[in-house]
Structure formats: structure tokens, C-alpha cells
């Protein structure tokens, strides 16, 4: 378990019941509680029932609920996804787990052609209450095929809902919401968030779709950050603080539906918008947020175009070697730099701290 020493959990406890637990444990707790609450819920997918338990997020559930509600599968993503859709149509509530988001490309036909469309095509006669838990890899040479963040592909599709929680509190609340939702939900987890801690209530609670969360209210710029990039944006805001600048850090949490109201209100206050996606830019979440800004504030602010910019993965496959991989991702430094430029119009970087303390990015080591 790793906690960057100088960093604090993003939530402070609101009552003394809350515990500081890891994201991975929050996921497991949510699953366990909902499976106990609702016997229609079952959990399956490659490796959910082995001794590593999807990096710990499913450990103990086999013992708690038995092999009929917690089971592994053959390597057959396409059929297993269809299987989940069918079970969901019949009234069960499957949670299907992919240990890498990249494998969802084998499941996408069922998700887009069947899961997303059945309720509509059959005019409401069936529901598909299905949760797809899917993990984004990063670091340690995972490379081009083991670290893709493909939420944009799913955001494009009416009929799907998407969560991408950035912290333990939301991981638990969103997962419970997803399990209770009557639609197919793509639930995106970032591997590097698994070991990060947050204050989480032991109670059952939900975090809603379509409601973004603002961290560290600020004045000078709005930074919308997705998934793991929330952590980098929070670090960037600390850099900015040192030179007296403050940022509204907004985590959309739910990518479809997307809460633009929170973003627009923030931009009305700060006057600037930087979007930091944890994914590629082209036809990505960042494009969509920009496009909606134009639709919602077509005349800009005070008669002027709103300064907006976006960052995300380099427009390349992800290389494995560390020095290139570091350049592939936005970092707290590049984010702070970009924000500074948007605010000041200047490009100097001498104010940036030379090195940052060790983060979960450096702490992550193999085998995987």
C-alpha cells in the first residue's frame, strides 16, 4: 500500500465513522454490500476468483457468496459479455470484470450492438442492468496494448452510462449506483488509483450519475480532470498555489451523462478552462467538453472567447520504456505549466518546483 507522504486524501471525514481506506478496498466493500443486499447481483470475469482477486478488489467475495455468484470464466470476452447481457435481461444484475480496458475491444460488439440498444430497440420491454468493471493500466512497461483508456469510444454511444471515479469515496458510491442502475454501465477504474486512500463511510451510500465534484475551489482557472488525472491536477494546483494562483479542480466522475452545469458555473467564475483527459484527445472527452462549452456559452464571457485548452495522451500508441512513457502522459508539471500559460499568457517555467515527491506513479512496480 502506498500513500504519497506529503499528500492528503481529497476528502476529510465528515463523521467519525469514516475510515481511511484504499480505493481497491472501497470497490470490494461496495461489491460485498450490494451482493449481500440483493441476491440478483453476481460477479464474474477472468480471475475474479483467484488468490490475487483483481488486485484485491474481489478478494474474499468467493468465500462470502460462493462459486455460483462469484466465478471465473474461460478467455471468451465476446461470449461472456453476451452472457452478462442475457442474464441481465432475465433480471439478474451481473458485474463483469476486465482486468485491462484493452480487452473490452473484444466485448464491444455486445456492448454497443446489444447492451446499449436493447432497451430502445425493444421499446422498453427489457432492461440491461449490467456493470462492466474495467481497469486502465499504466506504468511498468504495460505498453501500447495494456494501458489504453477508451472511455471516449463508449461516451459516443447512446444507451451506455459511464463512471470513472478518481478516489476511494467515489469508487464505492459510484459502484453502488452502477449496480442499482437499470442500464449498462461502464465502470472505469485506474490501476494507479487502487492504492490511494480516502475517507469512506462504512454505510451503503450512492454517488449519482451526472453530478461533477469540485475539489479545491479556486479563482483563476477551472481544471476539469478525468480519472487518474484528477490526482495530477490536484498536484498541479499545489504548484500553482505557490505562485498565488488557485484552480477549481472539477472531476466529472460520470462521463455519460456529463454534468456541464458545474463546469459552466465554474468557468463563469474563473474565466478559463483547462481540460486534462486521461485518454487521447481526438474525438475524446476533452473535445466533447469544449464543444458543449461552445453550445452552452456561445458568446463566450463578457463578449470574448473563453480561453480554453486541453491535454491528454500523446497522439501515439503508448511506448513501454519509462522515459518515453513519462512524456506520453500529462503530469502535474505540464498541467501547471499549461494552466499558468492560460492564465498569464506567459510560458516561463522557472517558478515550477524542480522535482516532486514520489507519487503513486513512481511507486507502482511490477510484475504488474
Amino acid at each position, binding site marked *: 500500500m502506498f500513500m504519497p507522504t506529503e499528500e492528503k486524501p481529497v476528502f476529510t471525514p465528515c463523521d467519525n465513522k469514516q475510515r481511511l481506506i484504499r480505493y481497491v478496498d472501497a470497490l470490494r466493500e461496495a461489491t460485498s454490500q450490494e451482493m449481500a443486499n440483493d441476491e440478483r447481483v453476481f460477479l464474474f470475469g477472468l480471475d475474479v476468483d483467484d488468490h490475487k482477486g483483481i488486485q484485491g478488489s474481489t478478494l474474499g467475495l468467493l468465500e462470502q457468496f460462493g462459486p455460483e455468484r462469484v466465478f471465473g470464466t474461460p478467455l471468451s470476452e465476446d461470449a461472456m459479455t453476451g452472457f452478462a447481457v442475457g442474464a441481465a435481461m432475465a433480471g439478474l444484475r451481473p458485474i463483469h470484470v476486465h482486468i485491462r480496458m484493452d480487452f473490452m475491444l473484444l466485448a464491444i460488439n455486445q456492448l454497443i450492438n446489444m447492451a446499449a440498444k436493447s432497451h430502445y*430497440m425493444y421499446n422498453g420491454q427489457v432492461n440491461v442492468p449490467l456493470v462492466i468493471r474495467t481497469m486502465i493500466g499504466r506504468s511498468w512497461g504495460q505498453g501500447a496494448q495494456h494501458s489504453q483508456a477508451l472511455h471516449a469510444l463508449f461516451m459516443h454511444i447512446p444507451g451506455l452510462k459511464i463512471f470513472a471515479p478518481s478516489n476511494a469515496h467515489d469508487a464505492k458510491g459510484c459502484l453502488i449506483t452502477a449496480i442499482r442502475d437499470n442500464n449498462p454501465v461502464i465502470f472505469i477504474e485506474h490501476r494507479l488509483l487502487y492504492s490511494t486512500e480516502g475517507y469512506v463511510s462504512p454505510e451503503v451510500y450512492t454517488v449519482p450519475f451526472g453530478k461533477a465534484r469540485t475539489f479545491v475551489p479556486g479563482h483563476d482557472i477551472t481544471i476539469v480532470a478525468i480519472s487518474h488525472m484528477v490526482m495530477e491536477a490536484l498536484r498541479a494546483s499545489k504548484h500553482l498555489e505557490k505562485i498565488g494562483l488557485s484552480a477549481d479542480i472539477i472531476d466529472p466522475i460520470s462521463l455519460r451523462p456529463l454534468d456541464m452545469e458545474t463546469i459552466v458555473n465554474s468557468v463563469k467564475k474563473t474565466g478559463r478552462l483547462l481540460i486534462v483527459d486521461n485518454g487521447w484527445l481526438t474525438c475524446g472527452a476533452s473535445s466533447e467538453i469544449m464543444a458543449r462549452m461552445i453550445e452552452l456559452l456561445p458568446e463566450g464571457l463578457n463578449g470574448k472567447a473563453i480561453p480554453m485548452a486541453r491535454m491528454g495522451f500523446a497522439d501515439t500508441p503508448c511506448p513501454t520504456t519509462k522515459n518515453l512513457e513519462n512524456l506520453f502522459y500529462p503530469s502535474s508539471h505540464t498541467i501547471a505549466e499549461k494552466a499558468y500559460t492560460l492564465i498569464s499568457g506567459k510560458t516561463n517555467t522557472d517558478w515550477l518546483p524542480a522535482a516532486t515527491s514520489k507519487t503513486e506513479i513512481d511507486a507502482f512496480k511490477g510484475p504488474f
Partner: protein
Amino acid sequence: MTQDQALIARLYQSMLLIRELEQHIVDVYHTDAVKSPVHLSIGQESVAVGVCDPLNSDDIVSNTYRCHATYLAKGGDINGMMAELYGKKHGCAGGKAGSMHLVDIKHGILGASAVVGTTIPIAAGYAFALQQEAKKTGKQRIVASLFGDGATEEGVFTETINFAMLKKLPIIFICENNQLAIHSPLRSRWASEHICERVASFGIRTHQVKNADIFELHQLISKEAENIRNGISGPVFIECETYRWLEHVGPGDDHHEEYRDPNELALWKNKDQIARLANMLAPHEKEKINQKVAALIKNAVAFAEQSPYPDEEELFTHVYAN
């Protein structure tokens, strides 16, 4: 094998309803009343009826785009079907689904997909839910999953077969082998013609029904459904030889095209199961059924014609479930 007359009458009516309804589509297609691609089952009726008749009304049938036959054979609402074909508000899916996605959940018709093979794993998932249900209710419902010979080429078919056997699911897989995928013959698609052998290599019980024989298929399904309900576990795989009389999609006959052998049509018309049963019925019995079928279709057409088109707001309903 002596067949009791009531059964013959029932099977005849069920098959005839399919044929006559599809014949109606053929007749009106040029008027553009049905603005939808139609994949007709004329000539293949015995498969749908042989499979669905032995099932209980709360059993489930799952299909592909060539789904008119199973919809009717499983007892789907004929008015809703006709209105759906006509793109009307009172269609079984409010006009949103069309010919390729007929659905009637109340009657255990799980819908159908235009993407070949995609309903096979869904049927297995449904069967899993029924397996779990049976542990509580003590009553084992069954899923029948129908698909074409072409569908067995998709990877998802083998994946599903393997998993269904691993989990001993209460499902009967039925391959409607009409030897064609659109216009491609089996030999250009299958390295080996023995699909039963292939499926049996997973340890599954398999059967082949030749000549689209309605009695043989009916009995097989009755027996295997019984087996599954009694805990002699599934899955089961059945290959049914059959033949598509009309073109792949649309109302026409295309036996003038090179991919077809006109002799084959004659051969299969000789084996026509509807004609076979008609000959087994007393003339007045047959006539009664013929009239009943005609009336059902006439009513359905009137129903469809009178139904309005869906309201414009319907475009936006049911994208998400509440």
C-alpha cells in the same frame, strides 16, 4: 410413430400461419407498406414450429433477424407483429424494431438481432438466470436458441458452446442449417461439414434432423426439454436441415441465380412439411384451419393499417431505462 390428430392440426396451423403471413408480406411488399428488409422463413417453418410447440409458454426462445417464424410459433402477438412490420405505434416494439427484431417478452420471445451470432451468448446468459431461478422455484424453465449455419462460424458461437457446457446450462441450441449464408454455400465456409461432430467435441449431446422433419424435431425437443427439466443436464445441440425457398432478404424467388440449384427447390418442395401435414388432415379439418389462419392475418392487417405511426416524441423514449 402414430401422431395424434390434435398435434397434427396444431402443428399444421402453426406452420401455415407462418407461411401465409409471410406470403402476405410477399404480396404487399411492392406497395411499400412494409418499409423494412424482410428475411422470410417460407420453406423453413417446420424448424420454428418443431422447436417452439413442445416448449412451455414461460420458456424462452431467442433468434436472429430471420425471426418471423419463431415469433409466431412461440405464440407472439400477431397483431403486434404486423403493426411492427408496418412501422406502426402498436407494433410489438412501437415501430422501433421492425422485421429483424421482433420481440414479445410476455410470450417468452427474447428479441432478435441483425448482427449474426450475437443472440447466442445472450440466450446462454438467460439460461443461466433460469438455472439459478430453478434452484429457488424447483421449476426449470428452458431457453431455445435458434440461429443459422452461418452463425456457427462466428467465434462467439464456439465460446458460448464451451461455456454453456461448462455450466451445464438449460439451453437447447438449434442450428437451422439451410446451407446458405446469404449466397455462400457451406463448402466455401466450413472446413468440415459435420457441425454435430464439432459441437460434440465439447462433450455436448447432439442430434441431426434431416429433411426438416417436423415430427422428428418435435419429438426430439420434447424429449430433451423433458431431460433438462428433470435435471439430466443441458445443453443440447440440434442441427436441422432445411431449405430457404425465397431469396435471402426480400420477397422474391432467386432460383434463377447461379448460386442456386433449381432442382434443389423441387426436391425440398417435395419434402414440404406443411403439405405433408395437410395430407394427414381430414379435408374439413384442414379447411377450418385454413380459414382460421386467413382470418387471423386479415385481422392483423386491419389492426396494423389502423394503427397510427408513432408520435414524434417516441424517437427519444426508452434510450435509458429508469
